[in-house]
């Protein structure tokens, strides 16, 4: 076997094992992989928390940040650079089965897109509840209070302006 294939094979097996896509076996014994997994998840969480605010705050308040980042690492190819990684993470979180998490992530992604590119067009995002108390809680680093609410629509304008209204009003 050519020597280059040996290094390539090892690195490919390690990638699959660290990202939780396949068992490593042998050289990549589970006990030793634990350190590597914890280290890379720690760095990923740090990068995400540095690059965006609302979504990781909400996930952390719900006790789901570690699991969500682990799922993201498993399912995503990743990217160079904190901004590109942030965008991938927010896209991942915008598909979250929890409608509030998905709405917060989609809104944060839209806000960041507008901030970085003034040519972005307006985006309308469906919310399961009134966003105002949610944003207020997240700005304080707290879990949003439980509340009964009608669905809302949040619009992120090209100027970064946020507007929202009850979804029913949008349908009339």
């Amino acid at each position, binding site marked *: 076997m050519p*020597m*280059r294939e*040996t*290094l*390539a094979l*090892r*690195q*490919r097996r*390690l*990638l699959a094992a*660290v990202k939780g896509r396949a068992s490593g076996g042998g*050289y990549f014994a589970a006990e*030793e992989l*634990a*350190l*590597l997994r*914890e*280290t*890379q*998840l*720690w*760095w*990923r969480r*740090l990068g995400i928390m*540095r690059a965006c605010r609302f979504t990781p705050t909400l996930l952390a308040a719900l006790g789901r940040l570690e699991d969500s980042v682990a799922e993201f*690492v498993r399912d995503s*190819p*990743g*990217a*160079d*650079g*904190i*901004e*590109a990684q942030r*965008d991938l993470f927010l896209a991942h979180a915008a598909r979250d089965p929890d409608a509030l998490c998905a709405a917060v992530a989609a809104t944060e992604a839209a806000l960041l897109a507008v901030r*970085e*590119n003034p040519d972005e067009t307006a985006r309308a995002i469906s919310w399961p509840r009134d966003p105002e108390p949610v944003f207020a809680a997240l700005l304080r680093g707290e879990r949003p209070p439980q509340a009964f609410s009608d669905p809302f629509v949040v619009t992120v304008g090209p100027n970064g302006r946020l507007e929202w209204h009850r979804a029913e009003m949008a349908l009339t």
Partner: protein
Amino acid sequence: MSARRIRLGATIDGNDAALIGCVVPLVDVVEITPDRWASFSRRQAPRVETPTLDVLAAIAAERTLILHGVGLSIASHDRWNDAYIGVLDQMFAHPLAIAWHSEHLSFARVDGEPLGTMVEPPWTQEALDLVAARINALQDRYGVPFLVEHVARAFREGEENEMSTADFLNRLCRKTGCGILLDVYNLECDQYNFSAEPSQLLDALDLDAVREIHVAGGVIHKGYKVDIHSRTLAPSTLALLDQVLGATRRVEAVIFEVLGEAIPSMGLDALTLELRRLRGVLDAHA
């Protein structure tokens, strides 16, 4: 015989005016991580913006400026990270007077996919030849000294290796003329996580190749000592630094590594005290 002078340095992890204002007056050397100063837009290749280069030029006008990369992935089986090379090209093309640069002896990408952390390659002849060729290419490309840093181990030294870590590093230095960046905190991580005594590496390493030393403080996370630079120095780290300085002769600088994210909790006052404490340690070895 002239007195030995070991320069004191610190990382400045990103364009933070308060951090720059605190650190620069206290140190001789400023180390920056190019990846943390570059912009990674979705629409263009990573680059260092002109105002950022101006800030770096102002720092370099006052202190020795050195680069320490995390993104090159010098030991990837396929290729190094071309985007990171683009950032280095830009920095070296600017008149910044970069004294030397360094990178981790690791791979952080596999087939172009980021791994999310840095992992040491197996210590084999294949990896040695691959990394040596890339170091030679770097030295030809930029024309300033290059150092490699051993990362905190991800694995025990096992049968997949054809040589020890020290043997690999010694051969790499002989083949390329590069130097070693010895990370004292990484040695402590290896000791904690894998019972690898620092003396195993230090006794076998060509210590004349050690030109820079890193020190840092980290955390125990889920039972592991993790290579994360978020705290001030533990007494054990200072003791090991003292031991290493006593055994080396050609160290140019000792750098205190601290993450930008750790500065708010650590505080600039604590950082100042730490740098003064380190200065005292270095002066004792003058």
